Structures are given as structure tokens and as C-alpha cells.
């Protein structure tokens, strides 16, 4: 099973060009950092509430990306008291380029991508998403469609993936335009359900607002 950092790296890769999709660098870093924090939450290394994110265990996960992110959150003695989720995202985002580069390397090593003249291309022409876990051998895309288009209660991993896809504004990879329009309330419902996901979405919206303002003012 891929980590959320690896899943997000795949999401942000444009299928045709083999390069990352066009988005502000700080937005890219925010989404990758959010994915790393969500991975750490699933590994029970961090926990969150409405006020803060707290490191609850410094035990290494065995994943170099996640262990580095964990170290970014444990630099100062006062970090033990926790920090605002946005501060945690900012800290981890500083290493996001390293994390996405490492994730690309892993995706090539495990045969999902191939590197071709500096571009990273899918090994198979038809985009196949890795399975979400061992219990259900469905593609992630099919699983997310099922969650988005019905009232099925998602599992926590589904929620995180939906948060990340929505934050990347790549929901059109999952749904048709008609489905997307009809599913907007459902998407809003589900993307609220992860507190790190909420913070990522807020940060990305702010970055995009600043980027648009700066672009229009130039």
C-alpha cells in the first residue's frame, strides 16, 4: 500500500507531460506536507484536535520521509506541547521537494512509473491506481467514486484521499463534470472530516488567493 505522500505525488503528476501539474510552489509543498502529516496520524505518531497537532510518539516508522517529517515536528522542547496544524504544515513543507523526489524514486523502483528523459511516466497507458488495502481489491478510483456518489460511510483512509484529491483540485480525475457538480455537497461533507485536511484546504485556498491577486496585479 502506498503512503499518502506517494499517492499525492502520483496525483500531482500530469499523465501526459510526465511533469508535476501547474500549481504555486507553496501550494505543492502544502499538499505534500499535509499528506506526510496524514501518514504520521495514521501511524499514530501525531494526533490533532481543534486547537493543535501534537507528536504523541517519536518512535521511527521505518519510512525515511515520514521519519524526517516527524523530526521536523520535534525540534524544540516546547514542541512537546503541540503546535497549530498550519505551523506543522509550514515546517514539513520546507522539505516537500525532497519528499516528492524520494517518492518519485520509490514509484519508479516499485514499477508504477518509469523515468524517460527527465519525465516520469506511468508504466501502463491506462492509469491504474494501486489498491487501497488488502481487504478490497478495488482500484482507489473506483472506491472513491463509490464513496462520493453514495451515502456509504468512508473509512479513514478514504477520507484522507478525498481531502488530498480535493486540495489538489483534481476531483475531475475521479468524477465526470456532471457527477462533480452533483457531488459538491458530498465532497464538502467528506473533506471536513479530517482536521489536517481542513487545514491543508484552508492553506491552499489562501495561497491560491494570494497567487491570483499577485498575478492580476502584475
Amino acid at each position, binding site marked *: 500500500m502506498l503512503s499518502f505522500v506517494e499517492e499525492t505525488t502520483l496525483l500531482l503528476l500530469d499523465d501526459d507531460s510526465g511533469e508535476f501539474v501547474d500549481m504555486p510552489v507553496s501550494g505543492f509543498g502544502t499538499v505534500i506536507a499535509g499528506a506526510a502529516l496524514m501518514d504520521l*496520524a495514521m501511524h*499514530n505518531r501525531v*494526533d*490533532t*484536535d*481543534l486547537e493543535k497537532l501534537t507528536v*504523541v*510518539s517519536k518512535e521511527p516508522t521505518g519510512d525515511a520521509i515520514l521519519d524526517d517529517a516527524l523530526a521536523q515536528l520535534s525540534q524544540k522542547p516546547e514542541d512537546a506541547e503541540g503546535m497549530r496544524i498550519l505551523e506543522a504544515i509550514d515546517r514539513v513543507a520546507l522539505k516537500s521537494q525532497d519528499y516528492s523526489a524520494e517518492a518519485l524514486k520509490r514509484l519508479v523502483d516499485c514499477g508504477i512509473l518509469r523515468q524517460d528523459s527527465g519525465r516520469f511516466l506511468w508504466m501502463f497507458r491506462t492509469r491504474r491506481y494501486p489498491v487501497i488495502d488488502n481487504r478490497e481489491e478495488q482500484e482507489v478510483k473506483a472506491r472513491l467514486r463509490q464513496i462520493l456518489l453514495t451515502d*456509504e*460511510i*468512508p*473509512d*479513514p483512509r478514504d*477520507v484522507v484521499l478525498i481531502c488530498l484529491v480535493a486540495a489538489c483540485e483534481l476531483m475531475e480525475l475521479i468524477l465526470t463534470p456532471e457527477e462533480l457538480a452533483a457531488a459538491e455537497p458530498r465532497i464538502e*461533507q*467528506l473533506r*471536513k*472530516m*479530517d*482536521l*489536517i485536511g*481542513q487545514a491543508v484546504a484552508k492553506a491552499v485556498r489562501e495561497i491560491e488567493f494570494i497567487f491570483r491577486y499577485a498575478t492580476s496585479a502584475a
Partner: protein
Amino acid sequence: MDIVHEKDGDVVIFRLSGRLDSNAAASAEADLGAAVAGAPSLAIDLSGLDYISSAGLRVMLVLARKVQQASGKLALFGLQPAVRQVFTVSGFDTIISIQPDAAAALAHVR
């Protein structure tokens, strides 16, 4: 955190007290999840729950999913204001039924 349970007819009533966070999540998930197989109608008294974190919310989500898959019903009741706020901000109150008291919760799941 402490979890106790009792039966009221075909409904299992759980009472949670203390903090439902990353320390308590694994055992809470095991205790609550085990009940779904036997009696998929659950009412959970959270009046003694002082705190819930994201890890605790994940426990509730996994439980709600299992109950749905078992065609059962689930309702929470007695939430303290701080815990209620977490359910509201996270939108969990749109997925899981929250009732004002035990009678309403029992009526909902029957």
C-alpha cells in the same frame, strides 16, 4: 479511558468516559467493534467523555462504517459541549446520529 456496556433489549449501550485520543483509540476500536457483530444496534453515552481527538474520531468513523455494513443503527448521546463542537466542526454530526438523551438514542436505533 473507561468503557462499560449493558444491554437494553436488543440494543447495546456503551458508556465512554475520560479521553478518547491516540492512547485509547486502539482498545476503544477493538471493544466497540466487537459489539457490532453481535448486536448491530448501538447507543453510545458520551456524557463522561471529556475529550476527543482526531484519533478518537477515526474510531467513531470505523465503528459507524461497520454498523452500516451490518445494516445496524448507531446513535450517540449526552455529548459535552467541547466534544459536540468537535463533531460539528468535523462534520461527523452529518454522518453519525447525535441524540439529546438516552431515550431518544434508543428510539433512534430501534
